[in-house]
């Protein structure tokens, strides 16, 4: 029986302890990308926690139990705005002085808002129907998922121990990236399988991150069973959000350990380079700067493999952002906030462009389709310019000899 008044039904005891543990020191504000571009403390991490504590107190406190709960509607509205304007990048948690895992906390606070009928907001609310009807959050037809970008010379097996999941954002919004992935896999000479376009549905991340969990169990079971039927032992993917969802949440929604392991494409390619199965012969005399995607670095701990791949290219000088690896700055695309708070997302994306240009990089290397789409968008109409390339797009260009 769900208690409408309660604010704790979507949270684990650990997350409740995290809400209590926040000392309101405000150190996290220095790293919050939304703070960087808005300066609005009302939507800052400690303020979100303070507001949520108020709700818990108002609903669960002794006074509420004795005299009934009374929730401040205005405060609820403010909280909804704050929690959905967040990019869920988790930089606040990385800097947190008491170690709160905020990249995980915010989505569950959003889930509570969805349960109360207050979230999601704007276009995010269309995601469940879009996924239900088309299999992806972009409402694009399944037949266009692979067709526009999939290279004719790359062969996909019916069954294989290795599978590749392109992901919706890559397939529809960052096609050079997923094209690069399959070209590189083909060059390695590995036999891999893929689900047909109508079966390769959304991994569930956009639903998870906006707090809309109802369809997740069904989606995850469909995908896991489909890969399992193909004899898959390793599932490769280049999208950090998908990888994060697969690694952290698929086992939870599947109800048990997955019958295959998840690997990010850069892990697989770095291994192939190390054991000589992939040789990048062409030189590239350029200064490259690599941006760590939040859900790849802070999310699943992949920071070195992309650098290993880039450093294996002869002639490359690899530069670093001031904030790199687990401390990286969000590109602005995270948390589905870009669908609603477009201006914030563009302004945050431009911070990454500014630093890459200031460091005199020839190219900005990304490894996330959401970053790819958003940073490219941020550069439209902007006076500072830099070439934006996905890591596998770059590698595929060098091994194809273009």
């Amino acid at each position: 029986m769900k208690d409408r008044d309660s604010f704790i039904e979507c949270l684990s005891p650990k997350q409740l302890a995290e809400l209590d543990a926040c000392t309101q020191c405000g150190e996290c504000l220095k790293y919050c990308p939304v703070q960087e571009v808005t300066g609005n403390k009302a939507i800052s991490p400690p303020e979100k926690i303070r507001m949520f504590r108020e709700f818990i107190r108002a609903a669960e406190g002794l006074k509420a139990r004795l005299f009934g709960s009374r929730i401040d509607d205005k405060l609820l509205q403010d909280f909804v705005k704050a929690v959905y304007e967040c990019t869920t990048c988790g930089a606040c948690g990385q800097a947190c002085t008491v170690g709160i895992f905020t990249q995980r906390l915010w989505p569950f606070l959003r889930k509570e808002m969805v349960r109360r009928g207050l979230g999601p907001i704007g276009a995010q609310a269309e995601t469940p129907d879009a996924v239900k009807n088309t299999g992806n959050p972009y409402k694009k037809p399944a037949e266009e998922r692979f067709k526009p970008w999939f290279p004719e010379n790359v062969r996909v097996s019916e069954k294989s121990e290795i599978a590749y999941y392109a992901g919706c954002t890559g397939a529809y919004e960052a096609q050079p990236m997923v094209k690069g992935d399959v070209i590189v896999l083909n060059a390695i000479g590995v036999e891999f399988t893929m689900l047909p376009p109508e079966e390769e549905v959304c991994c569930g991340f956009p639903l998870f991150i906006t707090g809309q969990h109802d369809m997740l169990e069904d989606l995850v079971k469909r995908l896991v069973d489909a890969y399992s039927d193909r004899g898959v032992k390793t599932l490769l993917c280049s999208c950090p959000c998908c990888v994060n969802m697969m690694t952290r949440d698929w086992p939870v929604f599947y109800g048990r350990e997955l019958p295959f392991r998840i690997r990010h494409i850069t892990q697989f390619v770095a291994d192939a380079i190390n054991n000589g199965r992939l040789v990048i012969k062409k030189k590239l005399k350029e200064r490259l700067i690599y941006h760590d995607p939040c859900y790849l670095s802070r999310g699943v701990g992949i920071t070195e493999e992309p650098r290993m791949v880039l450093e294996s290219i002869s002639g490359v000088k690899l530069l670093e952002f001031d904030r790199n690896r687990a401390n990286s700055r969000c590109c602005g695309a995270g948390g589905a906030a870009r669908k609603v708070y477009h201006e914030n997302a563009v302004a945050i994306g431009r911070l990454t462009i500014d630093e890459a240009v200031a460091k005199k990089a020839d190219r900005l290397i990304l490894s996330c389709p959401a970053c790819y789409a958003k940073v490219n968008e941020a550069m439209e109409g902007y006076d500072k310019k830099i070439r934006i390339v996905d890591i596998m797009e770059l590698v595929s260009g060098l091994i194809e000899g273009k």
Partner: protein
Amino acid sequence: MNYYGLILALLVYTSYAALFLRLLWRILFLLKASELANAGNKPPAKASAKIITNGIFDIMFLARLFRANECLWLGEWLFHITFLMVMVRHLRYFIEPVPQWLVDFQKAGIGAGYIFLLALVYIMAFKLFIEKKKYLSSYNFFLLTLLLLIAVSGFLMKNFIQADIVNVKTFMMGVFSFRMYQAPSSILFSFHLIMSLIFLIFLPTHVFSAPYTILEAHKHDEELKGLMYER
């Protein structure tokens, strides 16, 4: 026993009862939360000896705060450690006979009291003047102000307007053994005690939950190293 002493004693009992109720309520609340099956949340991971050791180090030295802000860390760490020392020093007002180690500790405890006051002033000034653009919590300022008042009144009592120590100890031991004695006539003592009781009522519960979340963060960091590399 005068009415004044009775009022002070009642204030002590009320504030302790309030703190006890608050903590009990919080424990019951967490027990209720742990009974809920929250879909989408994994059960917590186990902690190895290495994680526990690193976690304890982190908690004792506020290592995460050090990494985030060295200047603030200096004030906060000194504040926390000297606060603990001052509390230990004050045990002599509640124990009879006073054990030798506590007698020996008095000098260090008095020294800690001065550093405690300086650390509070430093933190307050740092937040108000140096990092004023950052998020400021009114609750934190309320607690800081309370602690400053407690520290200043303690400082004044120690150095300028002494209270009758024997009277203070007799009264406090009486309160805690439910035997009422004459309250000290020192207004400064009453102020010091009342501010301390208010602080007790508003004691931030992060003193209990933050060590837990810091330990969990160490588990998370360890998990992250192997998350994509297992099997």
